[in-house]
């Protein structure tokens, strides 16, 4: 996505239909959930990396139209691959009203890495713990209330293929959008010297780019030496300065 797209994307106004992004590790049931939400029959398969470009669908809940975007599965948003870049750019630039992170209940731990990364980018996060039927079969129990308390974002247990949890998810999305639920993500605290460096960078990023992007997240990428990511954000600031 280049600078010219950015201005277009930033101009989406708030009375348009809310956009819900579905993110998550590969093969966690994002496309299945997308179909369950929208009634579309996007092809799903049991191998990773299938959803390459995001597809869009719509649903109506309590009189409101929602747009749903199915993102490719990724383990990270550092943009090691096209899939990660697509997912990251969508969450960073398109700024969906809510990002639903779809996690696999049978290997929740590995899924939480991405959940924590997304929470650093946006606070508008819901965790959908999918494949609860598989977890039950493997005798894994998940304390969703405790998970919700520790993460600070709403957690919805689901079996997307059977449609279980879909109406609970729609309701949670509606509540996050109209602020009846306000997520307060509990962010990772890094070593003191890293936190000190973030504290130095954050105000400068906000001054240069405004508050449209998570300054904490971008600070961390700068500290990591990930200059490719930083370059992606510079055109936006230059455009803003020029206007």
């Amino acid at each position, binding site marked *: 996505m280049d600078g010219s797209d950015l201005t277009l994307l930033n101009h989406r106004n708030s009375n348009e239909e809310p956009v819900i992004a579905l993110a998550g590790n590969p093969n966690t049931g994002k496309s299945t959930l997308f179909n369950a939400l929208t009634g579309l029959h996007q092809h799903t398969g049991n191998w990773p990396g299938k959803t390459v470009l995001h597809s869009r669908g719509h649903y109506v809940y309590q009189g409101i139209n929602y747009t749903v975007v199915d993102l490719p599965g990724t*383990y990270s948003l*550092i943009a*090691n691959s096209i899939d990660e870049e697509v997912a990251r750019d969508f969450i960073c630039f398109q700024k969906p009203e809510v990002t639903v992170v779809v996690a696999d209940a049978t290997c929740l731990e*590995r899924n939480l890495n991405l959940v924590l990364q997304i929470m650093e980018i946006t606070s508008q996060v819901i965790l959908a713990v999918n494949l609860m039927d598989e977890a039950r079969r493997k005798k894994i129990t998940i304390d969703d209330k405790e998970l919700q308390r520790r993460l600070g974002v709403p957690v919805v247990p689901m079996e997307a293929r059977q449609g279980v949890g879909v109406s609970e998810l729609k309701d949670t999305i509606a509540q996050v959008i109209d602020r009846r639920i306000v997520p307060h993500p509990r962010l990772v605290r890094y070593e003191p010297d890293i936190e000190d460096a973030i504290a130095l960078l954050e105000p400068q990023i906000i001054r240069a780019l405004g508050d449209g992007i998570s300054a904490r997240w971008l600070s961390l990428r700068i500290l*990591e030496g990930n200059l490719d990511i930083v370059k992606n954000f510079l055109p936006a600031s230059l455009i803003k300065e020029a206007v």
Partner: protein
Amino acid sequence: MNIKLPQLRPGQRGIVQEIQGEGLTRRRMLDLGMVPGTLVEVVRRSPLGDPVAYQIRGAVIALRKDEASYINVTTC
């Protein structure tokens, strides 16, 4: 025994001891779940021997030999 991950044969398991390399390569390994203490099992090799599929924390992940060489494991 401390060896590099590509030296494990299909069916063998190892425990991650350390990830060499730095920057994005290291970060990518960590994001895939390769943190010290992680149990890794070799699932299968592709016909040409590279990449190799590993079972890591509940997911099967294919790594090229040059990537997997950054990871030191002990056999178990």
